[in-house]
Structure formats: C-alpha cells, structure tokens
C-alpha cells in the first residue's frame, strides 16, 4: 500500500534536473563572458579548476563503486545505485574538457600549459621552453600529441568502466542474475589499477605539468585523496536530499550515516597525511629544484590560502568528524560535507591558479578575477554533472533490488 507522502522517483526529478541544467548553462555562460573581461589564459586556467574539481568527484564515485565490488561490501549496497547515476557525468566532462584541447590546438598553444609552445618565454627566467634543457628531457612525454591522446584515453577508460558497471547493475534489477555481480567484481579487479594509473597521469598531465620543472611521486595520491573526499561528501548530500524527499526514509538508518561519516574522517586523515608528507619531505631536503613550487604558493595571499587548507581542509573536518553525533545527524554532517566540497575547490585553486603568473614570474593573487572565473566554471560544470545525475536517476529503481547484498545492506547494523 503506497504512502502518499512518498514521492515517485519518476516525477520530482524533472524540475530539479531543469534547475541544475539552468545553473550549469548559466555558469558556463558567465565564464564565456569572462573571455571579454579577462585574458584568455586566465579564464582557460580557471576552467581547468572546474574540470579538475568535477573529474575528481566523478573519479571518486567510480572508485567508490569499484571498491564496493572488490570488497563485496555490506553496508554500501543501498547507496551504490546513486554512485552509478553519478558516473553518467563522465561523458559530459569529456565534452567540457574539449575547450581546453581546442584552445591549445587552435589558439595560443601556451594558453594553459606553457610547455606546449616552444617559443613560450618562461616568466622570470629569461629563456624559452625550446631552450630549456629540463623541458628537452621530458619532451617525449610533454608534447601536445601525447597530451591529447592520453587525455582522450583517460576519458575513454573512465567512460568504458562506468558503462560496464552501470549496465551490469541496471540489468541485474531486471533479471536478478548473480553473474552480473561476478562481472562487476571482475571489472573492479582490473578497473582499480587502471583507474589508479589514469587518474595519476591525468593529474600529472593536467595539473602537475602546469609547473613542468616540478615533480613529485606523491602527486597522483594527492589527487586520489581529493577524489575520495569529494565523492563521500557528495554522497552525504545525495543521502540528505533523498532522505528529505522521503525516498530513503525507512531505508537509511543511523549506521549508514555513521559509516559514510567514518569514511569521510578516514580520508580527511589520509589527505592530511599525503599533503603533509609531500610538503615535509620537500621542506626537509630543501632542494631549490623542488621547493620553488611551494615557494610560489607562499607568495602574497597564497600563503594564507595554504593555511586555510591546513586548518580548513584538514584540522577542522578532522575535529568535527571525531564526534559520533555529528556523523549521524543530518544537519551537521551535511554542513561538514558542504564545507569539505568548498575546501576541495580551494585546494584545486591552490594547485592550479598559481600557474598564472605576471611578467616577473610571481603568481597572480588568489583574490583576483581568475578566482571568479574558477567559481563560475566550477558551478557551470557542476550544474551539468548534477543534471546528468538527475537525468539518469529516474531511469532505474532507487536501490539495486536484486543485488545479492541488498537485504544485508538494509538490515545492516554495526
């Protein structure tokens, strides 16, 4: 007997998805407007912030799904369907990545990544990329053809794995065949190393090569940490939204919230550990060829932003997520999730925006127009991703009704 309070999953999605699409398109439009107000390279680098941000979240959802399968997890089955809906965003992200490729192929090659143009004069150094021996040594990797091929490859891999996972899960709703679960486990087996490598090289190509003199073996792991944090925070927002709508009432209980909260805590600690290790090792050895990257990020107002990351991206969520009651009550955990999503944005800015420099080789300040375009890009791309999720949402059941672990997940208690 259906309860009139429970809204159908098929109807309430429509106005929400239109809202998301509008916000998305508006954000993109304002960013395009930015091309009139700011130089192309500032707007383009800010667009990269948005791409890096939302790719991180999408990759995080991909990894959450893969990890769920490889662990044969118990509690997360009720949530997994929402992860799978989020994976639909990859094709749009691929499309939204195109402007970056188009600008570099058809516009000024060094709009975003300086090494793409051999004639680019390195700020503050007085020599061009072509005469830079450090570039020559990595030119086999850092060239526009390789960049393009690999970037396309990354999206192909992510879209392919996502579609395998989605198809298996959605089809299992219809035929209840256990072999779909086995297929998912196999996908997870080879998928996790593949996603690990692609996200690492995406971070190297798209983010680390902005400052191509710099190198760090930890960089891919840093990006992974933000991927997971972003995905878990979005999971909380989805859980709150669906619970308040009534869909998840009677399905989610305190132990589910607690589990997600604990993972958020764990990855907060993990992010802190990774970022600290990277910084500390470079600080301690004090070798100029490595420390300059951090020195750039201590110039002007960037030092303050670094402190915001230390205290806001690590310490505050760490302390807040220690408490049990904050993890199981919707209002506080939602605030924490929103906060973390905010500081991930600042982390991406901190990693990417200092690549935009003035003639003396100093990064433009954080509080400049570049930040505005980064915000509008992130909102724009985000709107499209959320729209993609909302479009995928009504196409299937709310939870994987024939998954072997669904009953365990529903009755799960710690």
């Amino acid at each position, binding site marked *: 007997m259906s309860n009139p309070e429970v809204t159908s999953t098929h109807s309430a999605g429509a106005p929400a998805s239109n809202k998301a699409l509008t916000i998305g398109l508006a954000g993109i439009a304002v960013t395009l407007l930015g091309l009139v107000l700011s130089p192309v390279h500032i707007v383009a680098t800010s667009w990269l912030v948005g791409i890096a941000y939302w790719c991180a979240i999408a990759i995080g959802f991909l990894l959450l799904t893969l990890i769920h399968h490889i662990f044969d997890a118990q509690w997360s089955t009720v949530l997994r369907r929402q992860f799978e809906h989020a994976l639909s965003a990859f094709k749009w992200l691929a499309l939204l990545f195109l402007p970056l490729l188009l600008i570099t192929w058809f516009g000024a090659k060094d709009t975003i990544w300086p090494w793409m143009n051999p004639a680019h004069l390195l700020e503050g150094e007085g020599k061009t990329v072509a005469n830079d021996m450090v570039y020559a040594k990595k030119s086999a990797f850092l060239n526009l053809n390789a960049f393009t091929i690999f970037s396309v490859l990354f999206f192909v891999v992510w879209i392919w794995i996502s579609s395998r996972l989605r198809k298996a899960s959605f089809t299992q709703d219809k035929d209840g065949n256990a072999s779909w679960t086995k297929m998912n486990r196999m996908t997870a087996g080879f998928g996790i190393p593949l996603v690990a490598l692609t996200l690492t090289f995406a971070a190297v190509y798209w983010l680390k090569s902005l400052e191509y003199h710099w190198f760090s073996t930890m960089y891919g792991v840093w990006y992974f940490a933000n991927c997971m944090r972003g995905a878990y925070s979005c999971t909380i927002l989805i859980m709150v939204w669906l619970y308040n709508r009534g869909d998840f009432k009677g399905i989610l209980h305190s132990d589910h919230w607690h589990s997600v909260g604990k993972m958020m805590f764990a990855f907060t600690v993990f992010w802190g550990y990774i970022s*600290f290790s990277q*910084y*500390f090792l470079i*600080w*301690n050895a*004090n070798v100029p060829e490595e420390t300059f990257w951090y020195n750039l990020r201590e110039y002007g107002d960037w030092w303050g932003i670094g402190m915001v990351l230390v205290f806001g991206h690590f310490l505050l969520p760490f302390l807040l997520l*220690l408490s*049990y009651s904050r993890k199981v009550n919707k209002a506080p955990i939602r605030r924490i999730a929103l906060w973390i999503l905010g500081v991930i944005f600042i982390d991406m800015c901190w990693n990417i925006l200092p690549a935009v420099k003035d003639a003396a080789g100093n990064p433009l300040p954080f509080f400049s127009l570049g930040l505005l375009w980064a915000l509008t890009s992130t909102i724009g791309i985000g709107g499209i991703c959320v729209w993609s999720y909302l479009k995928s949402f009504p196409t299937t059941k709310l939870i994987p009704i024939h998954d072997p672990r669904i009953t365990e997940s529903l009755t799960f*208690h*710690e």
Partner: protein
Amino acid sequence: MAEHPYGLIARFNTPGDLYHAAEKVRDAGYKNWDCLTPMPIHGLDTAMGVKRSIVPRFSLTGGITGFCTGMSMIWWMNAYDYKIIVGGKPLFSPLFAFPVSYELTILFTAFATIGGMFFLNGLTQLYHPVLKYDKIHRATDDSFFIVIETSDPRFNADNTRALLAEAGGLEIAELEA
C-alpha cells in the same frame, strides 16, 4: 540458603533468549543487574538500557595531552633550553616536531583508553561473587547469564526469581556473597 546472598543468576542458551530476557529485566525497572556473555552481543546494550560508553572521553583527553606534551617538550628542548643549529633548519618548527608529537598523541591515547576502560570496568577485581558460581565457566565458553543483585531496590527473592523464570531463565540459582 545463604544469609546474605549476592543475587540471583539465571542461564540462557542463545543470544536471542538473553536479549529478550534482558529487555524484560530492564523494563521491570532493575538497576543493579548484569548479563554475562562469552562474547559481546550486538544490541544488548540497548536491551539492557546501558548508555554509550564514555571511554572516548578518556581517549580524547589522553590524545590532547600527548600532542601538547610533544610539541612543548620539543620546543623547550631544542629551541629554548639547549639550542643547536642543525642543517639550517629553524630551531623549532611544527613540521619537524610533528612526528614525535603524533606518536606521543597515540601513546597517551592508548594509555588513557586502556586506563579509562579498566577504571570504568573496575578491572583487576580478582574476587567477585559471581566467579564462585560453579557453572560460571560456561560464561566464558558458550552460555549466557543474567545476574540480578540483592542490593537492587526492586529485588525481592520470589518476584525476581519469577521474573527470571518467566523470561526463560534456566537453572536459576542463588549466588553467595
């Protein structure tokens, strides 16, 4: 019959039986009673009306003490009392002081957690009336017990025994003090 018995003890065969019996004892308003189980049973705390353990408060105190001890100790020793310049590093930096402070945080948290748990459980209580019961070895093996102490205000030799029997308790016996 003992002069001043410690309490009544009843045995149960399965965790499910124990759970339902515990709910009955809790609802009857008893306060000085306990369950004995060979392993922790999920949900039994709720059935007994026991609140969430406060061990975490000890842990947090220990952790904060450890961290502050570490940082201040290192500052005092390397940047104040006997300053040595090493490798051009600053005399004190939270960065290099972090590993040791972190370890002390964990060490003190561990001590506080275990100390707090021992304190709350009254451990190192090598004598306890319940350990004299001749079937008590089943409590660490495969059986479940409920013990209701005579010191409980609601204790009544006949009513309590009846409650335990009605709740499904087997071999209800008196414990000598």
